[in-house]
Each structure stands twice: as structure tokens, then as C-alpha cells.
């Protein structure tokens, strides 16, 4: 029997999926280095925890909710591919095994939820976060990804270009992050108390892993190893370099120094902004998207001080603003020479594409913000959203995970071995 399977495409998509997975620990390190040493483990666990929870949901019904037969353009049929069992059989007419696509898209869902965690470190109950992440994935990510990417989804059918997730991933996560930062409130002492990043080398390692994985994220979204994926790859590279320069120049002019954190942040801002646009612009267009993202996001991260919300690691300033920028810039900089084949305003295409992009972007932003706000308020009312002030001041790692990140001395902390499973014995004794 002849098979239409394209082994090159298949190999690339499995590789790209693994690269997107690597972005998740990359994101954890990027965020983890930026918090104080007493909460780095919790930060890592919030991002990795989102991966575990959303990964399970994706297999059970998340994929089906996203890419199942569209119900009114709003949601995929959750029962159609429940448990993914029906997708295991070899389809001789398909160039790419459907499971490669399922795995690739599943990583996107996990990463998107993880992004939100950067707004609320140091102070969020771990179980509350996991519950929020799971509910938000079901009520927001799966439907929104359906709107944007699934055949039949209302934003997709409108002709909005969101190649790898400016709207579905970054605007979506950024709007939820803003809602959650408002619901959970400021860290104790913010902004007067200095909360310096405790390990900028870790931040740069994270940024490097994100950049590497992002080639899988963007170029993999071509769903094939072909010319589109190569153009997208190059545009992703171009925009990121330009964005880092943009961010650093703002810092040099405003603050007097080009910082490591600025470079790492510029990298991520550029990656975010080029994500929706990477199939629609030329390489020079990519440079423009990048430098604008670097400059505008570097300015946007200061908004939280003006408005008084503690979006601790700037999910709003980088992901929401960067995502909006890239999504809207398609309306100006798209050229029909690029794989997407659409002309934006500057290439004589009129304002039509820009209008579509704006409708898609602002619909997702509003929906995600409102639903995240509601979920957050319910969990807050249930008392499972925020740790106590005393616990926060002494450090969330110890309270939520019973661990310390760094043991650099030789004294062993002056303790002794208590026993395996001693925690439960002690709890029993305390109850008596």
C-alpha cells in the first residue's frame, strides 16, 4: 500500500514539538532568575506545573476542544477525539501523522498557561495556581486557539493572520496575566522594597533556551519542512536581534547603561512580536517588527508603576504589548512576497487586513481578561489564591514546597535527619 507520508515533514514536526517543550523549562529559568532567591523554586514549579496539568487536559479533551469539528465557530467538539484513541491509526493519505500535530499543538497550550505565572510570583498558593491554570486552559485557551487556528473558528474564517500565536498565545496569556495580577494584588512591600533579580545568568540561560525553542514554535507552525518554514525561521532570527538592540538603546538613552536583563527581555519581546507576523513580512519587515517591539516593550514595562498593578515579571509589558504590536503590524508591513501572501497598508493592501487583525486581537484580549478575572475572583473568594503575608515575607519556597533553592555552605544548616515520611507522622502528632 502506498503511503503519502512525508518523512522530512514528520521528522521536522517531531523535532519542532520537542523544541517547543524545551521552551517551558526555558521560560521557567527566565522567570526564575528574575525573582528573589527565596521564591525561585516556586517560580520554576508554577511554569512546570502548568505543563503537567495542561498536558493531561490536552490528551483527554483539550485537543478535541481545539481542533474537533467546530460548533458554531466557537468551540471544537470535545467528545470527537476524546482520549486521542481514534487518532492512532495510520492514515495513508496524510503527509504528516496527526499525532505529530497533536503533540506540537499540545506544547503550545502548556506554554501559554505557563506564561501567565510571571505576573504573580512570590505570593500565589501552588494548588490555587494549578486549579486556575486548568480552568483557564479549558475556558479560554482551548476555545481561543479554536477561534484562531481551527478550520471553522470564527477568527480564522475572518482571514486574520496569526501564524504562530501572537493572538492565541501572547495576547491571550498577557490579558489573563493582567487580570490575575489585579485579583491577587501586589507583593508585600512592592514597589518600595527592592526586589532585585537574584540570578541574571539564569535569566539569560532561559532567554537562550526560549530563542532556540522558538524556532520550533514559529518555523514548526508551517507544519512542514518547506520554504515557508525557512522564511519564518529567518524572520524570527532577524526580529529577535533587532529587538534586543532596540531595548538596549532605550536603556542606554534613558538609564545610562545597557543591561543583561534588558538584553534578555529584548530577545523575548522580539520573539513575541514576530510570532504572529513571521510568515507575512519580509526579512527587513522582520527587523522593523523587532526593533519596534524592543523599544515599545522597554517603555511599556514601566506602565505598572504608573497604574499600580504588580505584574511582577512584566507579562503584560512584554507578552500583551509585544503580541498586540506584532499582530497589528501585520496590517502595515505584510507583503504578498512572503508566504502568507497578503499586502498590508504600506504595500498597497489598504486597511482591510489591519481591521481584521485588530478585531481578532481585541476580542481575544477582552475575552481572556474577563474570564481570567472571574476565575481569579472565585478562587480568591474560596481562599485558595494567596498565601499569608508572613509566609510571603519568609519565602514561598519553604512554605509551599519545603525546600530551599541554594545550599552553598558546608554546615548542613545545623539540622539532623528525622525519618522518611516523617512529615505525616508529625502532622498526626500535632493533631493529637
Amino acid at each position, binding site marked *: 500500500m502506498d503511503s503519502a507520508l512525508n518523512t522530512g515533514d514528520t521528522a521536522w514536526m517531531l523535532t519542532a514539538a520537542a523544541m517547543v517543550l524545551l521552551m517551558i523549562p526555558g521560560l521557567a529559568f527566565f522567570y526564575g532568575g528574575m525573582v528573589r532567591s527565596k521564591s525561585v523554586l516556586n517560580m520554576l514549579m508554577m511554569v512546570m506545573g502548568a505543563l503537567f496539568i495542561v498536558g493531561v487536559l490536552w490528551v483527554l479533551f483539550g485537543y478535541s476542544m481545539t481542533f474537533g469539528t467546530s460548533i458554531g465557530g466557537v468551540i471544537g467538539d470535545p467528545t470527537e477525539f476524546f482520549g486521542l484513541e481514534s487518532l492512532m491509526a495510520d492514515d495513508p493519505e496524510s503527509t504528516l501523522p496527526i499525532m505529530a500535530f497533536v503533540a506540537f499543538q499540545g506544547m503550545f497550550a502548556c506554554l501559554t498557561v505557563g506564561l501567565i505565572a510571571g505576573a504573580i510570583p512570590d505570593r500565589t498558593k501552588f494548588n490555587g495556581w494549578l486549579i486556575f491554570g486548568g480552568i483557564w486552559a479549558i475556558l479560554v485557551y482551548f476555545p481561543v486557539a479554536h477561534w484562531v487556528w481551527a478550520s471553522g473558528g470564527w477568527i480564522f474564517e475572518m482571514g486574520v493572520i496569526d501564524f504562530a500565536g501572537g493572538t492565541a498565545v501572547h495576547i491571550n496569556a498577557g490579558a489573563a496575566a493582567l487580570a490575575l495580577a489585579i485579583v491577587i494584588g501586589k507583593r508585600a512591600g512592592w*514597589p518600595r522594597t*527592592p526586589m*532585585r*533579580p537574584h540570578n541574571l545568568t539564569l535569566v539569560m540561560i532561559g532567554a537562550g533556551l526560549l530563542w532556540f525553542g522558538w524556532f520550533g514554535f514559529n518555523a514548526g507552525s508551517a507544519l512542514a519542512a518547506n520554504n515557508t518554514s525557512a522564511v519564518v525561521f529567518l524572520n524570527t532570527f532577524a526580529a529577535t536581534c533587532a529587538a534586543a538592540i532596540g531595548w538596549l538603546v532605550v*536603556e542606554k538613552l*534613558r*538609564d*545610562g*547603561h545597557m*543591561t543583561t*536583563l*534588558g538584553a534578555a*527581555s529584548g530577545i523575548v519581546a522580539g520573539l513575541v512580536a514576530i510570532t504572529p507576523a513571521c510568515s507575512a513580512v519580509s526579512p527587513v519587515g522582520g527587523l522593523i517588527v523587532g526593533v519596534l517591539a524592543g523599544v515599545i516593550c*522597554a517603555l511599556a*514595562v*514601566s506602565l505598572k*508603576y504608573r497604574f499600580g498593578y504588580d505584574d511582577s515579571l*512584566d507579562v503584560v509589558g512584554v507578552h500583551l504589548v509585544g503580541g498586540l504590536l506584532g499582530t497589528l503590524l501585520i496590517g502595515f508591513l505584510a507583503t504578498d512576497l512572503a508566504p502568507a501572501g497578503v499586502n498590508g497598508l504600506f504595500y498597497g493592501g489598504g486597511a482591510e487586513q489591519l481591521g481584521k487583525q485588530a478585531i481578532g486581537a481585541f476580542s481575544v484580549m477582552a475575552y481572556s481578561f474577563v474570564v481570567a478575572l472571574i476565575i481569579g475572583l472565585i478562587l480568591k473568594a474560596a481562599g485558595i489564591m494567596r498565601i499569608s503575608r508572613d509566609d510571603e515575607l519568609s519565602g514561598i519556597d519553604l512554605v509551599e514546597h519545603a525546600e530551599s533553592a541554594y545550599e552553598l555552605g558546608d554546615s548542613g544548616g545545623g539540622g539532623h535527619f528525622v525519618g522518611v515520611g516523617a512529615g505525616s507522622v508529625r502532622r498526626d502528632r500535632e493533631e493529637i
Partner: protein
Amino acid sequence: MKLVTAIIKPFKLEDVKNALEAIGVRGMTVSESSGFGRQGGHTEVYRGAEYTVDLVPKVRLEVLIDSDRLDEVLDAITKGAHTGKIGDGKVWVTPVEEVIRVRTGERGHDAL
């Protein structure tokens, strides 16, 4: 017997240690520390947010010596730690009642 405690700039530790070894001082205790005096702190900028950092990294050095060596020891430390710029640190002297070497149980002068 005296305990000489010196707070110095971290990059001057090597000079101070060499100066003390040159006059025959055979031991010292060094710890990383931080604090502030007239030098004050510095500012750091993270994503445009400027923080003042008041505590400056310093090295704290402690030496136990015989009282009759006090002047030459103080001389060695101040010369070794001197740059002439603000933040060179401080040295102070405390009387010591008793010293014991843990390994041998020797006391007083013999334990130094």
C-alpha cells in the same frame, strides 16, 4: 592579647594578607560581609526601575595577636588596605581574656 578586626575593600584582601604574612602573622579569619559607612551605596537598574543598594560588599578580617605586636599589625593592615578613596574601611582593637587551641588545649600566648 588583642583581637584586631578590620573591615576592608574585598579587592584589598590579598594586599592585607601579604602584609600580615610578611610580619609573621600566621592565622586570620576572613568572612564576606556587607554594610555601609560614609561611602554609601550605589544604584542598580532593572527594566528601568532604579533601586538604591545601601549595603556595600566588604571583607571582615579578624586576627588574634600578642599585645606587644599591636602597632606593627595595625600598621600592616592600614597600609595594605589603603587606597585613599572613600570606603577603605575601619580597623578596631578589642582586648581578649583567653584563647584556647582546640586540638592541644594550649591556652593564652601558646595558643596564638
